[in-house]
């Protein structure tokens, strides 16, 4: 039987072809959408999804203006104007417009950069303000572009620049408060991951969008009072003129909180003109990073320890012979003939006699020697209670610790501690000494020195609360006696220059410097220091001021540092609206 094959119709063939084609499509789609799913999703995301960093704004820094915060460091958006020489069409129009709008901010002979046709990016002007940039944009210059840059602005110029520090080109704080508080000032950048159109406009379509808002940096309020700071800087500038010293420094503190009202050094710099600074040493804040032998102002610490330990009173006596033996060394007074014979400890402080302080150190031991026990006691007061010779923790970068030799150290012998009793043989920073002095005169409570008065929350000033250090430095009675002794010493040797009716106290210091080549004290350079307090109520000092003058010769605490104290102190009396007593 002849087998007959059924002849398929053309329609059926077409249908089969279509089915086969559809099957290929299905298989291909299955391959693309299922097997290669992740690959193509990634491909699509890379083209459609874009990541934007939402930059956090660096916090502004406020200072105090009396009780109100005022802006000391701000942010400003400025523009860098650049050109693509290959797309510039009307060279002269570009030159004219930029000269007209941003004449002072252009590069020198910027027109020459427009002729560099082999380049695509030439900076024509920098730090152009937003208004100037808008005017240039309106000119619609082909081939001219703008880059927005945020920069720090200092409305008060160089005021407190060594306290503030600055922000480098990468946006990181350098020196001072900017560096110490960098993390809090910076804030945290946010992230926007979203589908965009061809112009990079974010669209809300898609389910993979991520929006993490930026957290702007904190805006702290410094305890620096701009008026006190300005006065202090003026007083220092006058002192430079008066003394010819290489460097002068001052710190003004509120003894009842530890807050720094002013902190300044001369010479200084303008943070908005960093490129003009020739000496990087100007960025340093000597009040926190220049430890030195503070000299006789340390006698206030020795009498505070002696009074608190009960080994002396202001009217306690000793025999002053102009010098005193400690082990194999003879310790001399600055003047061997001053106040010889039986004198009081008040006399010793008034006349800044080293023998009196060594005597107190001996009385902290067995009465005739600076024993190991006496050295331990002095170390406990100086190092453990007054926190001298170690970093205070003030919110400023670059703080130095200084040196106080422990009695357990081989160098911590009686001679060392006899020197320490009158301010030699230990290196302290001004902020350490001023903070310890605050404790001596404020009733005995140590407050960690701080430059932060609070924080701005929107437009609200949230004040920080001052908490004293856990350990009391000296008793309130000892503090009252020390205050009275220091008040007496202030008027003992130099002609008073204070406003009458106020309770002012202070102590001079004139310290030799060590020659780094020989390691010996040199006679051609001394550092002058003055450390004092003031107020109208004898039991409540309102301010503590420490000043120093050094470099380029011999300077005396009474002759050179004390006038700066007087200048600032007399001004503060008016500024703080203190009424005279009696």
């Amino acid at each position, binding site marked *: 039987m002849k087998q007959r094959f059924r002849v398929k119709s053309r329609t059926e063939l077409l249908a089969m072809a279509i089915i086969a084609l559809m099957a290929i499509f299905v298989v291909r789609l299955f391959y693309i959408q299922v097997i290669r799913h992740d690959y193509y999703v990634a491909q699509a995301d890379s083209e459609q999804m874009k990541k934007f960093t939402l930059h956090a704004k660096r916090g502004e820094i406020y200072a105090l203006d009396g009780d109100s915060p*005022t*802006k000391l460091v*701000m*942010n*400003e*958006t400025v523009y860098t104007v650049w050109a693509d020489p290959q797309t510039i069409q009307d060279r002269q129009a570009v030159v004219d417009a930029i000269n007209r709008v941003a004449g002072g901010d252009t590069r020198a002979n910027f027109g020459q950069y427009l002729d560099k046709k082999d380049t695509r990016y030439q900076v024509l002007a920098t730090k152009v*303000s*937003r*208004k100037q940039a808008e005017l240039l944009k309106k000119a619609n210059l082909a081939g001219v572009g703008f880059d927005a840059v945020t920069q720090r*602005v200092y*409305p*008060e*110029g160089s*005021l407190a620049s060594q306290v503030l520090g600055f922000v480098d080109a990468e946006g990181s704080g350098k020196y001072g408060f900017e560096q110490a508080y960098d993390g809090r000032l910076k804030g945290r950048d946010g992230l926007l991951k979203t589908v965009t*159109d061809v112009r990079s*406009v*974010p*669209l*809300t*379509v898609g389910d993979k969008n991520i929006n993490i808002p930026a957290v702007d940096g904190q805006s702290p309020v410094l305890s620096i009072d*701009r*008026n006190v700071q*300005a006065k202090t800087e003026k007083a220092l500038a006058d002192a430079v003129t008066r003394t010819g010293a290489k460097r002068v420094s001052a710190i003004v503190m509120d003894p009842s909180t530890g807050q720094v009202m002013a902190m300044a050094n001369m010479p200084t710099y303008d943070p908005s003109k960093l490129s003009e600074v020739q000496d990087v040493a100007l960025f340093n804040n000597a009040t926190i990073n220049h430890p030195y032998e503070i000299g006789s102002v340390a006698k206030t610490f020795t009498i505070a320890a002696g009074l608190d330990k009960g080994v002396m009173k202001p009217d306690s006596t000793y025999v002053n012979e102009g010098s005193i033996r400690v082990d194999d060394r003879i310790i001399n007074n600055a003047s061997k003939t001053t106040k010889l014979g039986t004198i009081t400890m008040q006399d010793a402080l008034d006349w800044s006699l080293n023998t009196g302080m060594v005597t107190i150190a001996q009385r902290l031991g067995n009465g005739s020697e600076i024993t190991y026990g006496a050295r331990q006691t002095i170390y406990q007061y100086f190092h453990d209670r007054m926190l001298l010779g170690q970093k205070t923790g003030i919110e400023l970068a670059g703080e130095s610790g200084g040196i106080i030799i422990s009695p357990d150290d081989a160098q911590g012998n009686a001679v060392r501690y006899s020197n320490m009793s009158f301010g030699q043989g230990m290196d302290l920073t001004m902020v350490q000494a001023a903070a310890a002095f605050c404790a001596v005169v404020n009733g005995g409570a140590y407050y960690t020195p701080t430059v932060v008065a609070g924080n701005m929350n929107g437009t609200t000033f949230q004040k920080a609360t001052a908490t004293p250090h856990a350990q009391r430095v000296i008793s309130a009675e000892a503090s009252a006696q020390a205050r009275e002794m220091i008040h007496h010493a202030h008027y003992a040797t130099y002609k008073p220059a204070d406003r009458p009716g106020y309770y002012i106290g202070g102590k001079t210091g004139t310290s030799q410097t060590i020659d780094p080549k020989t390691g010996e004290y040199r006679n051609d350079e001394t550092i002058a220091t003055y450390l004092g307090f003031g107020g109208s109520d004898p039991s409540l000092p309102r301010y503590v001021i420490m000043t120093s003058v050094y470099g380029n010769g011999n300077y005396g605490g009474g002759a050179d540092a004390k006038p700066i104290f007087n200048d600032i102190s007399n001004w503060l009396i008016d500024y703080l609206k203190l*009424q*005279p007593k009696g």
Partner: protein
Amino acid sequence: MSYTRTVQFNSRRQGNWGRNQNTVAFASAVKLGPITHTVLIALMITVLGLIYLTQATRTSSYDYAASEVDSQISQLSDQKKDLEVDNARLTALKEVQNSNVAKNMTTPTETNYANE
């Protein structure tokens, strides 16, 4: 808003409902073939697609509007910042000290204190 019926009436159709039972249902003279059905379904899909596209486009237009508003906010914020900087510069200590008001101030010859 609600209305209260004040007049009662009965529908004749409602009352004579039983009479309409077993009536003849006439088939429509219009017959839809498979092509028409396909076309109608395609049309429905097209309409639904257009509705979807309209909504999706509207969402995108909101994004552009939001982007525009963001840009305006940014510009106004920059202007505010500029004004704040100008204000801070104008009220800086040196500006105040150099002002005519400050130059015309004099030091008091005598100070009296008002005690509380």
